[in-house]
């Protein structure tokens, strides 16, 4: 039944304290909309400025991550416009004590080990070390294969005051599902 399906989805999100959830093809326009709505909600609820900016920042970095790197995508034929839609999950919510941002998307199997190593390394760094890595990467330029500044996850680690966790799950021969939760 339609109503059961929709209310079940809504209840499931509610139970998890989710205030925004997007699953689908993420674009810069979708990100603009989410960012504006999120900004209004954070203002409305008078969330403390550093917490609010932390949540905002993590949402931006993780969304752009999906737009740039999700391995699950639909591309137009080369002779058409360069449409390239990337699929992912993004959720923002609040549990008993903290705000959180969750993202999930497919990554190529061959990239998952590099990503995992890099995240484990970042996870082990303290604030001073994170800052040093952030500066070094920005000055020396992005690592090979990066489409941005290459410091998105360092930024997330610096903003996630309560830390972050991540996981991978085998999907098929080519892809692995990657999920990350940052807590503020």
């Amino acid at each position, binding site marked *: 039944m339609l109503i059961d399906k929709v209310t079940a989805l809504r209840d499931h999100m509610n139970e998890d304290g989710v205030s925004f959830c997007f699953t689908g093809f993420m674009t*810069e326009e979708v990100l*603009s909309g989410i*960012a*504006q709505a999120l900004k209004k909600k954070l203002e409305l609820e008078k969330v403390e*400025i*550093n917490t609010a*900016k*932390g949540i*905002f*920042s993590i949402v*931006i*970095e993780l969304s*752009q991550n999906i737009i740039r790197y999700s391995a699950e995508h639909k591309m137009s034929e080369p002779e058409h416009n360069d449409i390239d839609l990337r699929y992912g999950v993004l959720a923002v919510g609040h549990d008993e004590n903290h705000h959180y941002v969750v993202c999930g998307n497919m990554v190529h199997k061959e990239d998952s080990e590099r990503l995992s190593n890099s995240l484990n390394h970042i996870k082990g760094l303290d604030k001073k070390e994170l*800052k040093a890595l*952030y*500066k070094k990467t*920005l*000055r020396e330029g*992005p690592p090979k294969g990066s489409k*941005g*500044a290459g*410091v*998105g996850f*360092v*930024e997330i680690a*610096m*903003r996630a005051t309560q830390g972050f966790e991540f996981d991978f799950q085998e999907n098929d021969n080519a892809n692995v599902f990657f999920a990350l939760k940052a807590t503020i």
Partner: protein
Amino acid sequence: MENIKIERTDRHPEIDFDYSTNRFSIRGFSYPENVKDFYDPILGPFMEHLNSLDGASVNLECAFNYFHSSSAQVLYKIFDAMEICAAKGNSITIMWGYESGDDNMQEAGEDFAEDMEHVKLILKEFEPT
């Protein structure tokens, strides 16, 4: 150099570059859809201008509500160029604005100040917008 004025949007900052007075300012949010498309046309002439200066006095105001990590890379480029320009004897001042209470933005300013030897960086609080 031609002066540059760009109105702010939700995603990119207001740009006011006045080459005739050497007063430059960047204010607002910075997470443009495409960082290169937005900043490259602004940065090209600006870097060229900095290179050409001799005994000049330059003032740059940066007042960000937020900038994302790809924008941070642009800031490093600008500040590195300004430091070189100042080391050559030009007088360079950066006013680093931060919203009151925004610890992260304040710290970013303090870190930039620490890294720069010849540029004078002044921190300035502004009311949340």
